């Protein structure tokens, strides 16, 4: 069975979307204000979402609609290592200075690192397995590995894979570049034939360095 990469999308501090990669780099910005969620979410609905969730859902809104698959056979697998780090750090600081009563009871749910992947499924109504992988550096590529396997096994027809990160200090300065990148994997035979594929997944190999 062949698995195709049929669509890609991206939100990052360097490029607004994949098409922008052919254009000059955006200027480095010191404050974490490079991303405007309003075009993707409207005025309000992003308010209680953490940055990694915003990046992921916004990137998923850049993707072409997936119409040819049963919604129960579309999965989401996202790799992230720091998806909850800033949320938990800010919660920790709030609890130290003011106590738990100062925490926002909706925002605290972002401390669950799987919410970026979950919100893609919630937003799009995909009922297939929804998974978050968290190994540092490799979680993104591991999400491709698992997508390949779950499609090959016949559990899913299509998987939105990818990665998201956010690393700002408590004043909102960027420590490491954040953003999200998504890759849609589909079984070639079941993919939309009117769209040209970016690539076909070939093989994976993994081990631990000890």
């Amino acid at each position, binding site marked *: 069975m062949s698995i195709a990469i049929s669509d890609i999308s991206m939100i990052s501090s360097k490029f607004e979307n994949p098409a922008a990669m052919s254009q000059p780099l955006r200027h480095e910005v010191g404050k974490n204000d490079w991303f405007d969620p309003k075009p993707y979410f409207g005025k309000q609905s992003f308010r209680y979402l953490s940055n990694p969730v915003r990046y992921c859902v916004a990137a998923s809104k850049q993707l072409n609609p997936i119409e040819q698959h049963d919604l*129960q056979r579309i999965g989401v697998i996202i790799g992230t290592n720091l998806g909850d780090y800033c949320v938990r750090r800010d919660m920790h600081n709030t609890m130290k200075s003011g106590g738990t009563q100062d925490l926002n*009871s909706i925002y605290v749910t972002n401390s669950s690192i799987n919410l970026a992947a979950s919100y893609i499924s919630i937003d799009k109504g995909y009922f297939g397995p929804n*998974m978050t992988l968290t190994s540092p550096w490799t979680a993104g590529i591991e999400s491709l590995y698992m997508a390949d396997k779950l499609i090959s096994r016949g559990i899913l027809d299509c998987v939105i894979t990818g990665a998201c990160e956010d690393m700002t200090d408590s004043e909102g300065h960027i420590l490491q570049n954040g953003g999200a990148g998504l890759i849609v994997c589909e079984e070639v035979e079941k993919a939309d034939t009117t769209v040209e594929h970016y690539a076909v997944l070939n093989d994976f190999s993994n*081990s631990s360095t*000890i």
Partner: protein
Amino acid sequence: MNIVGLGIQSPIGNSIDSFWEGLKRRPVLPIECKMPESKESWETFVPFYQTGQSQSQSKFGPVDCESLATIAIQQALDDAKLGVNTHRIALVVGTGAGAIDVHESCGFSKQNDDYPYDFAANISRRLGLSGPCITVSTACSASAYALLVVREFLDESDIDAVALCGVEAFSETSLATFKKLLVVAPTQCSPFTDGAPGTVLGDGAAAVVLRKSKHSSETNRQIIGIGATCDAYHATAPRQDGKYCKQAIKIALAEAGIGMDQIDIILPHGTGTKTNDPIEYSILSDLYNKRELPSVAIFPLKAYLGHGGGSSAVFSILALTLMFKKRSVPKVEGWQPGENYKGVVNKQRIQSFQYGLINTLAFGGNNLSVVIGEGT
């Protein structure tokens, strides 16, 4: 997937034998711990089931949750007596919040040199395992979702065995999240009781070693069905109609090739919260095509360990494997399932010890169900 080795570091025991003994004596109250409620009243107490720190024989030094996981995996590998090259052993870790205990204790000051979810690689290094390793973090179903990775690893030609570990740390931010959602009980976790005030969190690590079905195993238990779905409904609440949780159980049963009426015992998600228990109860009843559950043996493991977050699925696999091996279901002391949960029974005598069902739900609606059966 044969279950060939078990290891545990839990609030009720730090070895398989002591854990089994612990299941016979339900702790009356969990250990209380401090919770920073406000800067003025830092001393507010909340209950928490904590894994004992009596690790004096441990060769791994001070006990953080990564060390608990390392010890549990080493126990499981010792128990499995694999006798295979360590580069043919893969490792999959399921955890809700990773090494959050380390980051909280140092006030999130180590930013770049210590990654919060580096369990799989770190533990592989500590145990000298050079097969592939992956960390899975789908909140409270993390170590259940990890089974999807385990199954793929076991199908790789260069892997002989996979160690699967579920681990969760004590975390004040996780505790604060549950408190803000108003689901933390003031005293004890009592799933499926009327008016249950909520859940109590717990920490610890449980590990199992799995091999391909063709290998014989001492426990003679296999994972024979896995079903995974997503509610795609809400960040923290399960779907009211439970449709996709039910679907996950149906997929697991279909893969196992059995019907719901063949399940001898169920280890439910059973958190003791108003959001989980009524919905899970109606899901299970529906699967029997009944409005009320027909008298089914239900074992509420969280009544002993609290809610171990991402670790809870492996704790359940381990407890179920032990019950099947010993052909006995421990009596849950002081647990009286409520009037609203007719048919939920703490049975010590069940007809056969052939099939067990484990159900997990999670934030984000990440559902996964597992069927465990007898080895062939």
